[in-house]
């Protein structure tokens, strides 16, 4: 789906817990997610720490959206 969105001109940052798979299958901007059932955070952390983690993941996605790239690229949450 992300490949198709990009094809139509919409830069798409995909948050995925399996970045190599996402990159292999055609996603161009991939952010490393935490785990498959919870890519955007970690329920084992306390609420505040989890929220901070989520912000870092989303910021990596925003970073990916604003960068010009020439090939499938992974963006690590800071």
């Amino acid at each position, binding site marked *: 789906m992300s490949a198709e*969105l990009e094809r139509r001109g919409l830069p798409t940052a*995909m948050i995925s817990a399996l970045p190599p798979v996402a990159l292999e299958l*055609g996603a161009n901007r991939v952010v490393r997610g935490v785990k498959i059932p919870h890519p955007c955070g970690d329920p084992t952390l306390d609420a505040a720490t989890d929220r901070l983690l989520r912000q870092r993941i989303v*910021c990596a996605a925003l970073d990916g*959206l604003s960068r010009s790239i020439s090939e499938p690229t992974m963006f690590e949450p800071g």
Partner: protein
Amino acid sequence: MRVVHYLNQFYGRLGGEEAAGTPLRMMDGALGPGVRLNELLAASDAAVVATLVCGDNFPSEQPETFRSGVRQAFEALHPDVVVAGPAFNAGRYGLASAQVCEIARQLGTPSVTAMHVENPAVSLHRRDLVIVPTTATASGMQTALSTLARLAVHLAKREPLGPPWVDGYLPHGFRRVELRDAPAAERALNMLAARLRGESFQTEIPLPEITRVEPAAPVADLKTARLAIVSTSALVPHGNPDKLRQSYSTEWRQYSLDGLSALEPGQWESIHGGYDTSAANTNPHLVVPLDALRALEGSAYGQLHPAYFVTAGVGTPVSAAQRMGGEIAAELLKAGVQGVILTAT
């Protein structure tokens, strides 16, 4: 063994495109590439007893005359096997060759044809006919004729063909259970060892072709950009009011985030059939990070599009995913969205 060969007007030495309307005719013995085919068949006591030649346009301009003509020829000649082509990438010739093989099949006569894998006749007939893959141009004529001769003899003798990768024809897409000489673990490790040594190996599961898409230009100005969330996590309003399918999903839904600064557990649930949804149901932000996006809205980026798009990404056929991506893209572009954050589970 009696072989009947089918050629178009060009290979049948009647002329080029100007002769494409030539009606079906029957000639004694072999001609054109059939001469070489005949030589290859001789070793197995087989011979091209007659050649059917027809202009490329005739089968589509006069289909009934063509079909009955071919049928009558086969009934008069009683071949043990019919060989059509090779047609390479010639579409009309490939389609005619396939039709000739179909007619043979209906009469209970084995047949084989050869053409390039992208010939339109392949997608129509690959499951029903024995088709030898060839080069796109006649540069591969000799190889094609050798394979055609070999398979023609097998088929004429009514011998079952071996697997496609052994006998050199396009797979029909059937799976047959067979005993291998080594257990799967051993075969897998041998493949891995070959791969690590940089040697070639034959995969048992060919992966589908993935077409790469050129990355889209980045969001021009993130600070003012309108962004949207799309998710394959199947997070939907509690109760799944629009009945999104939990797997093999081929549809998407959209829900409003207007006025929401957070996703309350209990008001949303993930109906995904492919991952443990308990974490997402307790805290939906773990799959749809609305809280973080709201916190950054107006500072790190412009605005969050009020519609959220969702499907269940499990067992989704690639073609469906592409279609859904296209449909969602159309909605987003209409709404002036400039970038997407897609969460996958």
